[in-house]
């Protein structure tokens, strides 16, 4: 019984390795590459043939002229997309509070006139460290600062935020959110068209 079962075990593992480990992922890869090539390869954003990011992967921003993303706990630098991680700080961890305080200071320093309460997602790190979004509230919080530094009308920046806002999927799934990288690219885009004129 033992020997016969051992042989059966070895052969079945070999066969299932072939079926579920080779054929299955390769069929999925094949279909994905033909039907959804852009999505299957990381939803990359390109400019002049150069990859300038992914629609789904956030980037770090600290310049006042850009909308800032959330905090990121990846190392050795924020938004390292080759090594995803959250901070794993517990709610009472002093490091969590220090990080939030530092962020608040930086936000206030970049825009001394803005004394509104700060939306919580802007002072916390995401689970992946790569969150491409901020909440609509977090984007609106930054609109005046960005408009002032870029010499744009507040209304114009606000409408750009709206254009880059994704609503709840199917009307009820998830949360409304703003894609930070796409928003900042759009901002740079109107700036450069204006300069070209």
């Amino acid at each position, binding site marked *: 019984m033992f020997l016969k079962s051992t042989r059966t075990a070895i052969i079945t593992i070999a066969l299932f390795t072939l079926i*579920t480990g080779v054929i299955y992922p390769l069929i999925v890869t094949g279909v994905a590459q033909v039907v959804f090539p852009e999505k299957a390869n990381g939803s990359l954003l390109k400019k002049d043939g150069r990859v300038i990011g992914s629609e789904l992967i956030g980037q770090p*921003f600290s310049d006042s002229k850009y909308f800032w993303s959330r905090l990121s706990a990846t190392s050795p630098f924020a938004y390292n997309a080759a090594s995803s991680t959250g901070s794993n700080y517990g709610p009472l961890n002093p490091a969590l509070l220090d990080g939030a305080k530092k962020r608040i200071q930086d936000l206030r320093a970049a825009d001394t006139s803005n004394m509104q309460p700060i939306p919580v*997602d802007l002072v916390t790190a995401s689970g992946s460290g790569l969150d491409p979004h901020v909440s609509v509230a977090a984007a609106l919080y930054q609109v005046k600062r960005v408009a002032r530094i870029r010499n744009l009308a507040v209304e114009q920046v606000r409408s750009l935020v709206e254009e880059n806002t994704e609503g709840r999927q199917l009307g009820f799934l998830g949360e409304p959110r703003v894609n930070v990288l796409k928003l900042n690219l759009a901002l740079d885009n109107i700036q450069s068209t204006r300069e070209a004129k």
Partner: protein
Amino acid sequence: MTTNGMLQLFVYLAALVVLAKPLGAFMARVFQREKTFLDPLFGPVERLIYRFAKINPDEEMDWKQNAVAFLLFNFVGLIVVYALQRLQQFLPLNPQGLGAVSPDSSFNTAVSFATNTNWQGYGGETTMSYLTQMLGMTVQNFVSAAGGMAVLALFIRGIARHSGKTLGNFWVDMTRSTLYILMPMAVVLALVLVSQGSVQNLSPYVSASLLQPTADTSGAKVTEQVIAMGPAASQIAIKQLGTNGGGFFNANSAHPLENPTPLTDFLEMFSILMIAAALCYTFGKMVGDTRQGWSLLAAMMIILVVALFVAYQAESRGNPKFNALGIDQFASAVNPGGNMEGKEVRFGVANSSLWATVTTAASNGSVNAMHDSFTPMGGLVTLVMMQLGEVVFGGVGSGLYGMLVFVIVAVFVAGLLVGRTPEYLGHKIEAYEMKMASLLILIMPLTVLLLTALAVVSQAGTGSISNPGPHGFSEILYAFTSQGNNNGSAFAGLNANTPFYNITGGLAMLISRYWLAVPTLALAGSLVRKKLIPVSEGTLPTHTPLFVFWLIAVVLIVGALNFFPALALGPIVEHLMMMQ
């Protein structure tokens, strides 16, 4: 808590109940070797497997032969995963040139995937080559799940049959579970995930230039972001369906390339419980009384809903320490609010709480938010869901056979209370059954608590803690609770990739999978021999609301008695500190 949040939870739970019957009926056909609409596609493959492996599909085996088959199959699989990690640097499909994984980490990971745990001491994108992910992780995601379903099918036959000896054939149940149940659903789910943005390729990682250059911790300028790639969607689909949970990337389903949109989040979360919920109906169908299945599903659902609301409420409240800092944690139309540390904006608090409850109710263990950063009460829910023994849905197969053991205990205790001979579905429950059931219920808390105790009194154990205070203790308790229940999620701040944790955790996973599966089969082997006792006046009906609540009470009392002292030292103290 918001109306929209509640709506999402409601749709989720309703969909689960609605799908239980059609999927459950289909799975009963698969286990009973009846015709299905997939026969033209997978029938030839199935026959080919039997021919090559010299399996006689009509051969019936007793519990011992099945247990040997189950153990050997797992052992061979474990060796393959170990070898792949140790040798990946010499093998193809390793575009990032990742080196060999250390022996203790390879051992832990091999055990982890063979036992359907998917605890991960490693970060996927920095450790495993594409080949290891495909041939090691993806394969075990299928077959460890199918193995659990096969053991369940054998156990159900032990209950459905009388005066017999054999339970069926492990090889046939495992093969059919893989081909007819897991494979078709995985293909469909994987493609839907890709259509939303999950990656599926064999390309090297991509370099992207940052819009605004940044600096690393040493102050050096960073102008590029390297984006991890790989055959992720195919692995994610089966990691959810098979209640495995091991992420392709380190951040698991919080990673935008694993779980890009709220829709993928919903579908991945749905896949975690879908099969486990439907198996309740399968059980009812196979024992010839679907009410028996519905009552088990009702018991599981009630516990799940209560846990869910506790978690959602706790996470919605946010962190009281933030209120003094001028941070807006209130949920509104533009702000998800709540405790957002470790959570993604696209999911918000509602979906993160739902996922956390669901993934620990099932022994899935994938995460879309970092449990380590949950509020103490949110974290408590995840701990408790595992400490109930992974019987509230639980792993595919293993959850239901775990719950059936609790049913036997519940019937026995009820019998003692009223002075009647306990019986379940026509089987007399006697000393041998109770010995096996007690063994099954006691092994898990013993493993979890002893290993936690060992870790907190040793330097090797406490040295890995990352959060100060009671939360640090919770991290250790969580690690062994998770591995000792084949869950696999983590309070991931704990640095578990050390020889101490890799080896003790590996042992916990081995014990909780095999020391439970073998007595389960022994129990089935004993039940199947019993003569049918016809239903009489003295029979305790096991499909009534009264029995559902009795069963819930037994599950909760056993769980609470085992773990309350440990929970008091961790999340409960932390909660009181936070409220100060």
